[in-house]
Structures are given as C-alpha cells and as structure tokens.
C-alpha cells in the first residue's frame, strides 16, 4: 500500500473520454454550423421535455421527493468512506469480489485481466457511462477482447465509429435515416431492404445482438445505484438488453463510480420515482434489474464489482463542488439546456456533456484540462429547476469559474477585470469613465463595430449608443446635488 500524500489525484490524461480536443467555443461553432444536428437535437429534446413536464406534474410531492433525493445523496457523500466499506462487506458476504481502482488505467487493467482469466475474447456490455469514461472498450481491444455494446443507441454509436452525445440517449444526434445508413453499412447480417421504420430498425438490431447474447460468457455493466446495507446493485433500462447481459453470461463485471452508493434499501424508493420521470419522462422504466452477489444455479456464477475513483475523491475535496457527485445521470439538465440544445453533446468533449458535464468533467480532470466548460452556460438556471436531486448547477458553474481564475496566472482579461473593479469601486472614477466612454458616441452608429473583445458582440448585435447624459448627471442637474 502506498502512503497517501497531498491532494487526491485527478483522472489521468491519455486514457478515457473526459477531455475534448478543443475548447468549447470552437467545438460549439462547428456544431452550430450543422443544420441536421440542430434539427435532430431540437426535435428530440423538445419531445423529452414535454414528456418529463407531464409526468413530473402528476406528482403532488415532487418537491419533497427532490429534497429527499438531495438529502440522501448529501449523506452518502458525507459518509462515503463508511458506505463503501459497508458495500464491500455486503457484496463479499454474498459471494461477489470487490476491486478498488484509483483511476481509469487501474480499472481498465482489472477488467481486462478478469476477462482474460475467464478465457473470453468477446464481452457483451450494458450501456454504461463509467466504462465510456475510462475508455474500457479501447483497453479491452488492446487486450485482444472485442466488446459489443447492446444498448440500441450505444450500438448505433459503436457501429457508426462515433462518440455518445447524450447521457441517456447517446445517439440523440442521429435521426432514423442516418441510423438506417449505419446499419446497412456496418451490420454484415442485415436485410438489404431495411427501411427507416423504427420497428424495422429495432428488429435489425435485435437479430444482430441475439447471437452475441447467446454466445458471450462475460457481461460488463455499469450501475445506477448500489445499496450499502444489502450489497445490492441496480440497473434501470428500457430495452431488456441490459437484463440479458446481466443474467445470461457466466461472469458479470460491474464498473461503478464510487459516488453511486446509497445507504439503504429504502432510499431506492425515492430514486425509483425521481429517475424515470426525469430521464425518459416515464412513470416507471420498463426494466429494473437488481442483484446481490451470486446466486447458485441462477444467473452469473462469478460477480466482480470494480469501484472507480478517477477524480471523484478530488471532487469530494471541494466542499462546494462536491455537489456535482450527487448526479444520478438522468439527463434532465441536458434536455432543458438552451446551450446543449443548440450545440449537442460532442462540443463538451467529455462523456458527461451538458450542464452537469460542465461542472463534473472539470472537477474529475482538474479545471485546467477542461477550462472552457464552466463558461459554457448563460447561467439561465433551467438545469437547477429540472434537477431531480436539486444540484445548484449555476452556482457550481460560478464557483468553478472562480477556482479557474484563482488557479490561472495573469491575462488580458484579468487585467481588464482588475481595472474595471478599480474604476467601479469609486463613484468619482466611475463618473469619469462614463464621461470618457461618451467620446465613442459618434462611432456608435447602428451597425458599427466595437474593438475586441467586444467585436464578438457587434458581429451579430448592434451596440447601444451612449446617451448624452448619464442618469447620475441627469439626477444632479435635476436635484442640484454634487456627487
């Protein structure tokens, strides 16, 4: 065991999918130019928004449920050390084996060696953000193991050599015509007369996957909730493909971010009401699978649970920022976010996009590696209203911006902000600055351009013309007071 020195580590570079290749504004600009993407996203998010609003409106105690969800998560994070050990003991007692992974590299190595030890060269996967986060499929491929995604949307993404763009609906950026093209191109066993009828597309995927389900000896999953007191793992899904992966193979390996633990069985009742309504806009999700260790003669006979840190302890060390770890991955914040709706998920560069990604990814990687994300929001607050566990995302964004500025060196912006603070902390200096600004009045005609950085404003918006008299001048003239 190594001695713990200093701050907890962030998610390492060079592995997994938490960092984009370019800052958000540049990636967003490209996304905005994709008219097809804008249409696909606008249609999909507005449909989910309406469904969510309808089923949330049915519950008279929705606000109490949100408060309960928040309280349970806050307790789980405050006592994470204790609950994780309790979970480990409960899982072990029921015949499971628990592994601790400090980061993506350790988790990938553990899973790869477990699959190799089971003698498998193919695995079937349940949709899992944690395994996307650590780039498990790439690591398995490097170890000579083919991983097959079985969630329909993940399958579309995998076959399309693409990246997920949404927490819940990874292929939200694709419409059915595009999906048909991907299937025709990538599925060797597909009917060449395939139409873009959703039922036909689902049937094609079903035939393609069935063979894998029946032959695979190892299944890999993530987890929605892990109950510390019983050692029960829980996965919610819509298709039943997850249940096939969780029950058919001889060996089941589950990768779980350490923040997924909840204290008691009874706590599940709160999240079972919050999550389906917030994510798919359903009263109840079609498939809820729960398992506790190993049951002789029924289901997988070997169960491994990999507990993943990968920057979570570093996030936990920030008393304000740690609230991001309360997230239950419902994606309601993405669906209501006016920024996400226009840029899509790829622009965020991380497997966690949208408002929650903007506060989670920078904390997992260290802020400097995702420095543009806390600014990828107009702070409109729609995410906070929609969050089923009341994560105050706008406040977290403001907090992370402050941390970013505090951790960064001198810049033109920092000098400008310092100068503005100096000017505006004195009414006399402020008044002089107002009068000085008036020399731009003759330039301020409609359609004119301002100098950088305000040129970004006048590219699409006219600048206001400074008035002949400021309000304080008018007041002084009217009331005869001196400033």
């Amino acid at each position, binding site marked *: 065991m190594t001695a713990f020195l200093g701050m907890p580590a962030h998610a390492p570079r060079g592995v997994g999918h938490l960092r984009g290749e370019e800052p*958000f*504004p540049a990636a*967003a*600009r490209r996304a*905005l130019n994709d008219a097809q993407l804008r249409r696909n996203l606008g249609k999909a998010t507005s449909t989910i928004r309406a469904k969510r609003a309808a089923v949330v409106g049915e519950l008279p105690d929705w606000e109490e449920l949100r408060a309960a969800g928040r309280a349970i998560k806050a307790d789980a994070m405050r006592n994470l050390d204790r609950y994780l050990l309790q979970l480990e003991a409960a899982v072990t007692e029921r015949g499971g084996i628990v592994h601790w992974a400090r980061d993506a590299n350790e988790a990938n190595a553990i899973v790869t060696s477990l699959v190799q030890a089971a003698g498998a060269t193919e695995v079937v996967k349940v949709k899992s953000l944690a395994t996307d986060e650590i780039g498990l499929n790439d690591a398995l491929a490097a170890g000579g193991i083919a991983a097959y995604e079985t969630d329909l949307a993940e399958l579309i993404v995998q076959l399309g050599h693409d990246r997920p763009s949404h927490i819940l609906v990874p292929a939200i950026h694709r419409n059915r015509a595009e999906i048909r093209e991907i299937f025709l191109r990538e599925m060797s066993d597909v009917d060449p007369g395939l139409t873009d009828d959703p039922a036909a597309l689902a049937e094609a995927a079903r035939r393609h996957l069935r063979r894998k389900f029946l032959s695979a000896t190892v299944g890999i999953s993530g987890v929605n909730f892990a109950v510390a007191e019983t050692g029960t793992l829980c996965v919610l899904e819509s298709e039943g493909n997850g249940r096939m992966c969780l029950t058919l193979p001889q060996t089941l390996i589950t990768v779980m971010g350490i923040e997924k633990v909840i204290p008691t069985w009874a706590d599940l009742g709160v999240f079972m009401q919050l999550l389906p309504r917030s994510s798919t806009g359903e009263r109840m999700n079609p498939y809820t699978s729960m398992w506790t260790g190993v049951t002789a003669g029924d289901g997988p006979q070997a169960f491994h649970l990999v507990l993943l840190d990968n920057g979570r302890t570093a996030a936990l060390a920030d008393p304000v920022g740690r609230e991001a770890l309360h997230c239950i991955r419902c994606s309601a914040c993405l669906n209501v976010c*006016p*920024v996400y709706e*226009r840029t899509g998920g790829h622009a965020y560069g991380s497997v966690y996009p949208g408002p929650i990604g903007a506060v989670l990814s920078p904390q997992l990687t260290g802020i400097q590696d995702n420095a543009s994300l*806390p*600014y*990828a*929001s*107009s*702070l*409109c*607050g*729609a995410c*906070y*209203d929609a969050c089923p566990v009341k994560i105050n995302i706008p406040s977290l964004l*403001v907090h992370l*911006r*402050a*941390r*970013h*500025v*505090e951790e960064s060196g001198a810049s033109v912006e920092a000098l400008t*902000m*310092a100068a*503005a*603070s100096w000017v*505006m*902390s*004195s*009414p006399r200096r*402020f008044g002089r600055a*107002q009068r000085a*600004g008036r020399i731009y009045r003759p330039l301020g005609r*409609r*359609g004119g351009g301002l100098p950088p*950085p305000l040129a*970004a*404003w006048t*590219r*699409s*918006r*006219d*600048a*206001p013309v*400074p*008035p002949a*008299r*400021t*309000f*304080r001048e*008018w*007041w*002084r003239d009217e*009331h005869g007071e*001196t*400033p």
Partner: protein
Amino acid sequence: MRIALFATCLADTLFPEVAKATVAVLERLGHQVDFPAEQTCCGQMHVNTGYQRQALPLIRRYVETFEPHEVIVAPSGSCVGSIVHQHAMVARRQGDLELASRAEAVAARTHELSQLLIDVLGVEDVGAYYPHRVAYHPTCHSLRLLQVGDRPLRLLRAVAGLDLVPLADAEVCCGFGGTFAVKNADVSTAMLADKMGNVLGTGAEVCTAGDSSCLMHIGGGLSRLRTGVRTVHLAEILAST
C-alpha cells in the same frame, strides 16, 4: 415611503431612461425617491466571470452605500438576483464574514421593481397608458433566481391601452448571459436568433423585460436585422402616460 434607487451601472451609463422611468413611476405613486450618489455597480459581472476577489470592493461599496436605507429598488432582476444570492456568498468565500452578514441584511431590503410594486407597495395598476402591442420576455434571473412569477405580467395587464401578446418559449434564455455573450458569441447568437424569431412571430411592436442587459442583447439583434421591433424596459412602459 422613502425608497432608495439603485440605478445599476448599466442603466446609469447606457440606459438612463430606465432609471428615470423608475423614479417617475414611484413618484407618481406618491413616494420619495433617493439616489445615493456613492453607488456604482453590484459586481455581478465580476462574480459570474470568476473574479470574486475583484468583486469584493464593489460588493462592499453597495453594502456601505445602501446600508442606511430602509427600502431599496433596482430596475433589474439580474442585479437584484446577484445582490440577494451572491453578495454574502462571495464575502464569505473571500473570508469577510462581517461584510457577509451586513450584505445579507441589505439584500433583504433590496427589491426588484415588480416585486417592490406588488409585494411592498401593494399596487398592480400604476396608472400607465401605453397603446402598443407588447410581448413580455421573462428574464432568467428574475424568473428563476428571484421568482418574480407573474408580477410583471400583472403590472402590464393593468396598463391602459396595452395589448399583451403571448410569447412562444418565453421562458427560454435569450442567450445574453453577461460575458457569455462574448466568450461564447456563436452559441449566444444562436439562442438570440430563436428568441427573435419568437418575438417577431407575435407581431408585437415592442418586446419588454425587467432587465436592461437582456434587452440590450435582444434589442441589438432586432436592430441589426432592421426588424422595426423595439425593446422597451418594463419601467418605461409603467412610467408612460
């Protein structure tokens, strides 16, 4: 009642008619308005851009300027939102606990215009006349941070001659977001385009709101497109006779 006006740096500098209109409405209702000349800016731009240390002198200035005043009003949901939800938080984060508790006390006496009129002064009909077709955009910070609810709409419905038309997707952000409008200008502009489309779809002559900043953004876009639709602050409509 004696009411102290926080004009906001933006209205003071660029949109003085908004601050004048606030004075006019309150005086017409029989109240006495003070303008403490030591005021400058609430510091929201600094806080929301990450410069909390540099915001601290502005927060201290606000607190010291308005501490002697019993009732304070500002014609901006966003600035009042910052005063109410950020001033004490920033002071605490910067280690100034004494300022934080003073900021909390002053914030509790600071009201956005529609809240002051309806909650404190108990009026919905301010005696205004404005014979135009108007669409109301609920700005994000007034809607979600301050939860002004339908107060501005109740004030507008009581204005004689005013034809209030419903705005589609009214509660979606216009894309301003302070320095977001410059740092993420392309996304901001895409959001603005949809907001403008909805405003133009109403056939309104005027788009109104309770924040000069969002109106500067929407109005700047409408002007660039030569739409002929104007932006007018809620206070200016309420002051009109």
